[in-house]
């Protein structure tokens, strides 16, 4: 436990020391220092190809590292020398495992050389399908969101017309009120007219009845008062008038 404390304290103690004089190293400006904060979003896209590997075993950087001093054949000479050294000093022992390794390696290399291209194409196709699916989902999401945005804009445009809507509604209500008012006015007029007509009809009826009754009563009395004597006198006078008239007509002719 105390050792762990010491281990923890050691780097902190070392850092607490005054920093050593700045070591001026020839550092290319393009290499990133460990102190820079790398931002994680948006993620950079995956690199297309991995690091170059020669013969499937040795990274290309090794060949580039030896190129300035030894040219192109340098690493191969190094490899050959090392192999001969291991064989001669029997650091690499040739036994039954060597034969097994040779057979296995030859089979593997034959398989890779022959089927490598097809397997790579198949894997690429799988990757393409995955990417296409993800892209389709993303595009569909974008499209649906765009459609939602358009719908929202249209709704906003529609809201602008609400003044007209309310004006029309107000007009409707006013018209309804007006129509109702006029209906009732008409009804009042009709009712009043009916009552007044009734009164007028009553009065005319009463006057008619009075007139008829009076006429009948006067006629009856007159007829009663005509005595037979008067009747004879009136008839004789009528005949004399008629004779006179006829004489006058004869004379006119």
């Amino acid at each position, binding site marked *: 436990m105390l050792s762990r404390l010491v281990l923890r304290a050691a780097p902190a103690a070392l850092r607490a020391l005054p920093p050593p004089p700045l070591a001026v190293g020839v550092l290319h400006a393009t290499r990133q220092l460990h102190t820079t904060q790398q931002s994680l979003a948006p993620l950079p896209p995956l690199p297309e*190809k991995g690091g170059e590997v020669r013969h499937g075993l040795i990274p290309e950087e090794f060949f580039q590292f030896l190129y300035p001093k030894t040219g192109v054949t340098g690493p191969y000479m190094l490899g050959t020398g090392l192999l001969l050294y291991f064989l001669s000093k*029997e650091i690499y022992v040739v036994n039954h495992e060597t034969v097994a390794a040779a057979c296995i390696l030859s089979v593997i290399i034959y398989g890779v050389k022959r089927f490598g291209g097809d397997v790579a194409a198949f894997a690429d196709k799988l990757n393409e399908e995955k990417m296409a699916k993800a892209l389709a989902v993303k595009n569909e999401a974008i499209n649906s969101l765009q459609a939602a945005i358009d719908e929202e804009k249209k709704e906003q445009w529609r809201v602008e017309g609400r003044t007209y809507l309310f004006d029309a509604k107000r007009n409707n209500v006013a018209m309804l009120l007006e129509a109702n008012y006029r209906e009732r006015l008409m009804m009042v007029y009709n009712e009043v007219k009916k009552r007044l007509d009734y009164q007028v009809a009553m009065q005319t009826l009463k006057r008619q009845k009075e007139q008829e009754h009076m006429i009948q009563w006067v006629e009856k009395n007159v007829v009663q008062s005509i005595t037979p004597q008067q009747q004879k006198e009136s008839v004789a006078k009528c005949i004399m008038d008629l004779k006179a008239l006829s004489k006058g007509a004869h004379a006119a002719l």
Partner: protein
Amino acid sequence: LPSPVLLKDMKLMDVKLGQLPSWLAMRDFTPGGIAGAFRRGYERYYNKYINVKKGGLGGISMVLAGYVVLSYIWSYSHIKHDRRRKYH
């Protein structure tokens, strides 16, 4: 364009031989630091050879070759007895 850089921030390939002991002393040797170093190494290898769009055979074949070499080294004391000559 050479820029003055603190010793502890430089990468290993840029450290001069004379500065190597002081550089080693400044590294983080706590268990967390060592685990961090393993994780960094793994992420470097992974992001360079495996986490790419068109990865090749080299990515895993290097790991398998390293495993073969390591297992040979671990069993060398046993293989020594199959040597054909006693003196080289």
